[in-house]
């Protein structure tokens, strides 16, 4: 698959502070790419460089295979974390203005806005001033304005903040649809459950450096510890646990089940396999729960950042 966006050894300094240190990422076309990192890691700076708001001190950005050009802003849609609208401007007029700045003609902008306003059933907001809208309503307008020019690359920085669960879900569906229609999405967030749910690729930036990137599945494989969660139905829980712990590394686990069973997390060594474990357990008790422990995005995030420090 081709990469729609590639950054090559981006360096950005603010005075003595190095905000980005040799950041290289590759964003495959038509993927959802999670740009993750703790606060102040440099995500926003990188996003601003992609949007040509800030210029890098060193390094190159390629868009669609070519060096990023000023006119490429027409093919990029950006929903910043710090976002807002002109409070005293009317919704319709403002949306047209922002669309025109992205290169749409007035007529085209109106046509597309009508489609989106109908879709979200907000047609009667057209002549309202933004200050009359609630925060969630304004966020919807903001979302529409971001995607209106049908950009090839969409960059969302915390897109769900300010939305109630229903509207957050609506926006999530829209994002997925946009991906299916061919858009690529860079997604910066702290909400790991949405990373888990949406992202196919991730890059993790910590203290100005990229510490991890690739396909989320591959990263999970890399981070998995050969651990298994098991539920065993037994009369003598303590005794069984003691017995198992002599052979394997065991700790108590928590998960939901219908039985009052013995819940364990068992870490295997590199030489042991899942088959060995099942065979061993099967002889001693009824196994009603058996699952490989897959690290969550949250686990990976925390672990990677801890390792880096």
């Amino acid at each position: 698959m081709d990469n729609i966006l590639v950054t090559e050894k981006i360096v950005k300094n603010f005075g003595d502070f190095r905000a980005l240190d040799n950041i290289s990422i590759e964003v495959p076309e038509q993927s959802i790419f999670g740009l993750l990192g703790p606060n102040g890691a440099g995500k926003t700076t990188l996003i601003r460089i992609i949007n040509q708001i800030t210029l890098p001190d060193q390094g190159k950005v390629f868009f669609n295979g070519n060096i990023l050009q000023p006119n490429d802003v027409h093919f990029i849609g950006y929903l910043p974390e710090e976002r807002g609208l002109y409070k005293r401007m009317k919704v319709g007029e403002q949306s047209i203005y922002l669309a025109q700045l992205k290169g749409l003609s007035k007529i085209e902008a109106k046509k597309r806005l009508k489609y989106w306003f109908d879709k979200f059933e907000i047609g009667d907001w057209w002549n309202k001033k933004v200050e009359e809208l609630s925060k969630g309503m304004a966020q919807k307008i903001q979302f529409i304005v971001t995607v209106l020019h049908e950009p090839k690359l969409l960059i969302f920085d915390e897109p769900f903040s300010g939305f109630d669960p229903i509207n957050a879900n609506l926006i999530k569906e829209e994002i997925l649809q946009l991906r299916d229609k061919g858009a690529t999405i860079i997604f910066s967030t702290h909400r790991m459950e949405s990373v888990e749910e949406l992202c196919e690729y991730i890059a993790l930036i910590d203290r100005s450096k990229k510490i991890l990137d690739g396909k989320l599945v591959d990263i999970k494989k890399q981070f998995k510890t050969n651990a298994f969660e098991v539920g065993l139905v037994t009369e003598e829980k303590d005794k069984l646990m003691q017995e198992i712990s002599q052979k394997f590394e065991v700790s108590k686990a928590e998960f939901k089940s219908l039985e009052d069973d013995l819940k364990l997390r068992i870490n295997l060594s590199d030489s042991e396999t899942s088959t060995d474990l099942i065979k061993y357990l099967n002889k001693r008790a009824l196994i009603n729960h058996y699952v490989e422990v897959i690290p969550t995005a949250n686990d990976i995030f925390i672990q990677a950042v801890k390792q880096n420090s």
Partner: protein
Amino acid sequence: MNKLKLIIKREFLAKVRNRSFIIMTFVSPLIMAGMIALVVYLSKSSMEKINVVAYVDNSKFFSKKDFKDSNTIHYINLTEVNLDKAKKIVQESNHDGLLFIPEKDSIEQITESIQFFSQETPSMVLISSLENNLEKKLEKEKMLQLNIDLKKLEQSDLNVDIKLSNYSGEKSSKLVNGIKIALGMGAGYIIMMFIIVYGAMVMRSVIEEKTSRIVEVIISSVKPFQLMMGKVIGTAGAGLLQFFIWAVLMFLMLVAGSYFFGMDSMASVQTAQIPTDQMEAIATNDAQFALSEILKLPLFSMFIWFILFFLGGYLLYSSIYAAIGSAVDNETDTQQFMMPVIMPLMIGVYVGFATVINDPHGTVATVFSMIPFTSPIVMLMRIPFGVPLWQIALSLFLLILTFLAVIWLAAKIYRVGILMYGKKVNYKELYKWLKY
């Protein structure tokens, strides 16, 4: 380029549609006109007020003839009663004052011992007209004493009137000088006011974009420099529109005003004109003369210079205002940066008022009309008096050079500042931003 136009249009409309703009544009000329009318009315009525002055003349130098009523003073002779009683009478009948001339032997002594009693401090105009009246009489007396022939003296009274003209033979008069001062000062003052009012408007608009958090959305579509310049230019457009509307309103009010107030004077001029040709000289009243003199000035080139210096000055300062707006989070934080901006403007106006009137081409005026931060004001004050073209060109050149440099610096600060939140900014910080 297309986007710049869009931004200019939005900024222009945002300013023009603002309620306060509409009120400012249409109400303030009415308030101004009202104020002027009030001042004229009040000064007229105070001119017409007749002061009642009683006098006690115990000297031998004055006669009743010397206390003839004038336009503003009505005299009451209380010489018959003594001073204390006269004071009482004046107080009781609420006259404006009592003039007391004691009995003295010589004229010199008299000049030093005349007194005026009154409840409130009398106006300078009243006192000086009283003094004039007495002085004239006493001088005459003195001349008689010195055996000076009054007739001959009167004949010897000459009045030198130097006619002013420049080398190309254009005549000017002192009245024109006054008009030049008024035009120059007016132009300089308007430029200062415009820069302060509209510069602050640019600044507020930058702060608004920052606090409403729309700025990052916008600059993901356009360059920060475009946004800044669009704002500066769009705001200037709103200002020019306001100027234009004011000019039209002023013209209409002038026409209406002269129709209502000037009818009798115009009518009397016309009736006076018809009977004899001799009256022609009188018929050209002051206003008409002033108008014809104004029309003789190189108005067109003055207008061009006004626009050029105005644009230069406005661009210079408004880009600084934009940079300040970008550096702060709210308007109260702007205070520390405002002083250095307003200072040169103030200096320009005061230097202009103080030096240009006395000596339009003196060293101080010339130097300040070259310094770019004061030149738009001071040079415009000098221009009506005729400034060599090379000086104007040099001044304009320096101004353009400076505003290019300042816009470049301002844009650098602006670019960083608009994305900076929650940071208390000082000059050191701004300097750092220049290198980001």
